[in-house]
């Protein structure tokens, strides 16, 4: 069943005035897709999930599940969560602490007034699928984090929902378990072929898990597409820095044209733009732009397009992140060993095909963004 959001808006009245959690949001999610809703905290991703679940009413716009309108502010249609055949997995799992695991999983079926033997069969089958069939007699408090998570997933899956909603389901797990569960979630989702909305702030999760990713910022859709498309063709500087770790370098530059070619000037260095970028460059006004280059696309050479001094290094184990002071700007470089010590002058080279161009200001009506909250660890020194 596909999901369609049309001109969806949600406003909250708070003590300090009206907050737009979601503004004129349009998105279509294909049948059976695992669709990631990605964004920093406060971007409206959880609101979107709550609207899809029916936990909140939209201020404007329409939500469609397949052909059925489940919520429309304009037409005064609103289906309760129980009438939408949605299932949800919460960040805290929200298991009912007073019920045994069996009763937790059976709860939605009992509410749907299924027959007792049918409930027993469904619960046991789902529990077996998730490997928790030996925990059915326990209370949630007696389970580990990972086990609770499985129970939450089982409770969501057991009624074979037409839409599955996941709200940061992995963020309460430790790193190792998260990797394993990620793979398993993907497998389960494909087996059940259920249309899934998956909310996360973790871009790695989004990249590895999603069929499609929608990136949100301040209640607006920034970009939607495959992880590949978002990584390789970010639409805005925000998308460019939010996705990928360490984040893409955005170097202020000037765009110039000659009779036949486009150039970018970084201070007094002239950088030729590749053929593919010319169309993009043509759409930008000449003058101030941002030149985007991913740290992994920069390499140290003897003679390159940029020169600078290493100010700081940080080992990631296999690779090293360098900070290079370069033409009055700090550039991140991701490179293999051997390590280069700080203070050394280096030259940086890159393929002109790896360059992205952005207008100097963000297209949204908001002031330029602070560095993304996630994707770059805080640094000292």
């Amino acid at each position, binding site marked *: 069943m596909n999901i369609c959001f049309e001109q969806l808006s949600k406003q909250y009245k708070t003590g300090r005035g009206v907050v737009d959690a979601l503004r004129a949001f349009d998105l279509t999610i294909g049948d059976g897709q695992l669709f990631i809703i990605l964004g920093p905290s406060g971007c409206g991703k959880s609101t979107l999930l709550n609207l899809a679940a029916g936990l909140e*009413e939209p201020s404007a716009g329409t939500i469609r599940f397949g052909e059925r309108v489940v919520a429309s*502010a304009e*037409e*005064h*249609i609103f289906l*309760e969560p*129980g009438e939408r055949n949605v299932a949800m997995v919460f960040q805290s799992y929200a298991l009912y602490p007073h019920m045994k695991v069996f009763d937790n999983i059976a709860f939605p079926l009992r509410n749907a007034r299924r027959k007792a033997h049918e409930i027993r069969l469904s619960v046991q089958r789902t529990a077996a699928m998730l490997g928790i069939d030996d925990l059915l007699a326990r209370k949630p408090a007696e389970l580990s984090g990972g086990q609770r998570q499985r129970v939450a997933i089982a409770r969501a899956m057991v009624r074979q929902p037409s839409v599955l909603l996941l709200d940061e389901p992995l963020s309460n797990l430790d790193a190792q378990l998260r990797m394993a569960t990620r793979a398993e979630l993907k497998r389960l989702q494909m087996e059940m072929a259920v249309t899934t909305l998956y909310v996360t702030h973790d871009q790695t999760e989004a990249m590895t898990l999603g069929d499609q990713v929608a990136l949100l910022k301040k209640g607006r859709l920034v970009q939607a597409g495959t992880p590949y498309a978002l990584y390789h063709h970010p639409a805005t500087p925000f998308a460019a820095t939010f996705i990928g770790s360490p984040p893409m370098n955005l170097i202020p530059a000037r765009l110039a044209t000659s009779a036949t070619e486009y150039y970018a000037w970084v201070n007094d260095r002239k950088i030729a733009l590749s053929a593919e970028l010319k169309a993009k460059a043509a759409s930008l006004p000449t003058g101030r732009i941002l030149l985007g280059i991913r740290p992994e696309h920069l390499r140290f050479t003897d003679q390159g397009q940029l020169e600078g001094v290493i100010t700081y290094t940080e080992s990631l184990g296999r690779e090293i992140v360098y900070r290079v002071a370069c033409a009055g700007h700090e550039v991140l470089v991701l490179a293999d060993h051997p390590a280069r010590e700080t203070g050394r002058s280096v030259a940086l080279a890159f393929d002109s095909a790896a360059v992205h161009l952005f207008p100097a200001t963000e297209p949204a009506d908001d002031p330029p963004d602070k560095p993304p909250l996630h994707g770059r660890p805080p640094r000292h020194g």
Partner: protein
Amino acid sequence: MTRDHRPASDFRQARQPARRPPLTRDQVRGFWFLSPLFGFIGLFILIPVLGTIADSLFRDIVYLPVRFVFLENFRALWADPSFWSAVRFSALFVLVSVPLEVLLGLGIALVLNEPFALRGWVRACILIPWAIPAAVAGRIFQLVYNFSYGAANYLLDLLSISREPLNWLGSDLSAFIAVVVADAWQTTPFAAIILLAGLAAIPEDLYGQAKVDQAGMVARFRHITLPLLKPVLIVTLLFRTIQALRIFDIIFVLTGGGPGGATESLSMLAYRHFAAGDFGYGSAASVVLFLMAVVAAIAYVRVGRFQET
């Protein structure tokens, strides 16, 4: 699958096609959930209070025709020495018993806030006076103050304060003291428990830091405990004031308002007139008490809100 609110939303759609409903479905449901609460409080508290206020404007005595007299009852109250005696008693009682109870309560709370063996048991025991009905407490103290064989005179003798037994409930001053002590026994635990919660909320680190800064026990109490406890202290004072204003049960049982009306509170005065069938006059007296309680309640709510910000 379809539940009762679906037709309701369709109905709303038909009635007002363009406008958004002013309340969300949850809010509408919320008011339904609150309606029994509003219903009970309205029917059995608000309407009776309004009825009493209305009644205070009538001459309403059993077996006599009811007549609207406007403020006549209040004028009569103003001229009634027993009314002024009750006002004086209530004011004195609040002024003496409330600070006494809060001080005693603070002392108990300070003790119970320190770790010592059997602390849990002591804390449980202070709840006993609170749990006993005030009317029963009144009875117990009636026996305590018994002239011939009560515990109060026994104690006077034992502590060599007075060989002569005192007729506790026979003189104005000793009856007043008797009421204050009995009430303190009943209500100090409540003050202690509230203050104990306030003390427990003061971060332990502050005391550690003060010790590092070489502040002594008294200095720590003055500069950390008292200022940080102040909001809770004020709330306790106000709460106890409101309860002390309306005191009835203990006095009714212990002194019956005597001797000669010396310990008659406003509640007692109003009740006496109700019991005698004079509803208009009794209502006027309770309206006066009600207004005093409202002033104190507003103060309480104000302070409560102030604390939050």
